[in-house]
């Protein structure tokens, strides 16, 4: 495991404000994993062939594993009786902090791959940097997640090349997905007030510093995949602040169905 970039003041979490900021920060990370895992879970059994079907389910499982570790940490910080499931299933829509990108639907395999690739490049850079967090638990979670994230990035990157440099039809389809999803990439680098507090404390990496590197990496691969880099005059944002896409309510009503219909039950 890597060494922290700076030592965390042992009294750091004794401040209520710091603790709340940390919780908010953790949700900002883990809610992306949850919603993306949920979207990928919709695809299980419907893939274009068995091999990618199995691989996509695998990614969903890896993300769910990360979600559970992060939510367990949140539950521990909250110190009340909340469980990982309360955090996953019992919040209101506005309380989720997932970016718009991960909420986008599985329009076709091209959209699935592009959404995944845009997220994976970010996630690998993020977990890499998080390995130097001042928070020991986060360092451990980053260390655990980085191998998986590298595999995910390789999977989605390889498929992006196949689709981009495959047939006329695949190129046209995947280019459409790139064009449509590009506007959601910038939000990955937005930070809230809570995130900024965590960056200052050395708990969170400052992802804005890596934004340029992210676009360089993504653009290089798009070029290798013989795809055009979209030129858009604007980016979309909102999810991180709880202002979600219209898809989000449907994602949650499906995901929360059992917990809402049968409250206080053990499964």
């Amino acid at each position, binding site marked *: 495991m890597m060494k922290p970039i700076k030592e965390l003041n042992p009294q750091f979490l004794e401040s209520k404000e710091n603790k709340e900021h940390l919780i908010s920060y953790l949700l900002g990370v883990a809610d992306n994993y949850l919603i993306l895992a949920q979207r990928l879970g919709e695809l299980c*059994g419907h893939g*274009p062939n*068995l091999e990618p*079907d199995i691989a996509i389910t695998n990614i969903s499982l890896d993300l769910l594993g990360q979600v*559970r570790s992060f939510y367990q940490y949140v539950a521990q910080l909250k110190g009340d009786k909340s469980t990982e499931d309360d955090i996953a299933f019992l919040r209101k829509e506005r309380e989720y902090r997932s970016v718009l990108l991960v909420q986008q639907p599985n329009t076709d395999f091209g959209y699935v791959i592009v959404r995944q690739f845009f997220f994976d490049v970010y996630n690998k850079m993020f977990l890499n940097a998080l390995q130097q967090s001042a928070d020991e638990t986060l360092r451990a979670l980053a260390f655990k997640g980085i191998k998986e994230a590298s595999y995910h990035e390789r999977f989605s990157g390889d498929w992006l090349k196949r689709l981009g440099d495959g047939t006329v*039809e*695949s190129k046209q389809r995947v280019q459409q997905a790139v064009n449509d999803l590009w506007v959601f990439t910038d939000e990955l680098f937005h930070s809230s007030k809570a995130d900024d507090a965590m960056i200052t404390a050395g708990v969170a990496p400052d992802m804005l510093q890596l934004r340029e590197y992210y676009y360089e990496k993504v653009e290089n691969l798009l070029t290798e995949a013989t795809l055009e880099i979209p030129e858009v005059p604007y980016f979309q944002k909102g999810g991180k602040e709880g202002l979600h896409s219209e898809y989000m309510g449907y994602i949650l009503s499906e995901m929360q169905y059992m*917990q809402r219909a049968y409250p206080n039950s053990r*499964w």
Partner: protein
Amino acid sequence: MSEAEIKSLEAQFDAKIANDQKIEPKDWMPEKYRKTHIRQISQHAHSEIVGMLPEGNWITRAPSLRRKAALLAKVQDEAGHGLYLYSACETLGITREELYDQLHSGAAKYSSIFNYPTLTWADMGAIGWLVDGAAIINQVPLCSTSYGPYARAMVRVCKEESFHQRQGYEIMLSLCNGTDEQKEMAQDALNRWWWPSLMMLGPEDKDSVHTEQSMKWKLKRKTNDELRQQFIDQTVPQADILGLTIPDPDLKWNDEKGTYDFGAINWDEFWQVVKGHGPLNKKRLDDRRNAWNEGKWVRDAAMAYAEKQAQRKTEAATAV
């Protein structure tokens, strides 16, 4: 090949099977053996793949993160079973695409049980407990079947199936230890899955067309009726532990035989579902066909890309 040569090969083949030696892909085998194995192994592979659908139906609605992860992993295992069963089948000289075509055209069969709908979360428990339970009873003997690739695939399949069965039972146990509503949900699932699970072990011996030949080739070690009795005898005590009632008023222990007597199975329903008239035959096949058709451009892209890469490699090598 002369008739005498074929006779001699047949004799060697029969001797191998009698001595419990495995038949391997490159060995000579009678055409009927090859065809029967393609039919059975592909039917099994198709069942795994179609079987992903009823459980896949609950992944997005699983009631806890732990259950969601376990269900995803389980359905993924089924995809894995499909994958190595198709591979085992391919060793008999048929391609995966041809096998899919047979499934999609309706020429090949898959287990009828997957034509029933999964209506509640308890169905995830009932399927694991009953359907996987019945599958294990069917499949364990296949670990020592005569065709090598199939036998080896089955060793792994059975290990995972027995894990799935325990997982399903554990879902049922949680429900039965839960609220009244949860227990009702469990009972309702048992009511709906019990009879189709019994049917899953195949038609009665008197109506089973493949039994005799399959016994000889060790594709079967016990008859359908024997397997069904074994399933009932092992499952009834498990239902007792759960505190659930098997939906069969005629079910009772027979001291003399040392087994349970059970009521008449509605074989008309069974044959209706086999014929394609079950609640979800059409939807299951439509879902498979759609996934395959909608994935065509993706598979084509992968092929085209691989060809381009190979060509570039050749060109680079020639340039040097």
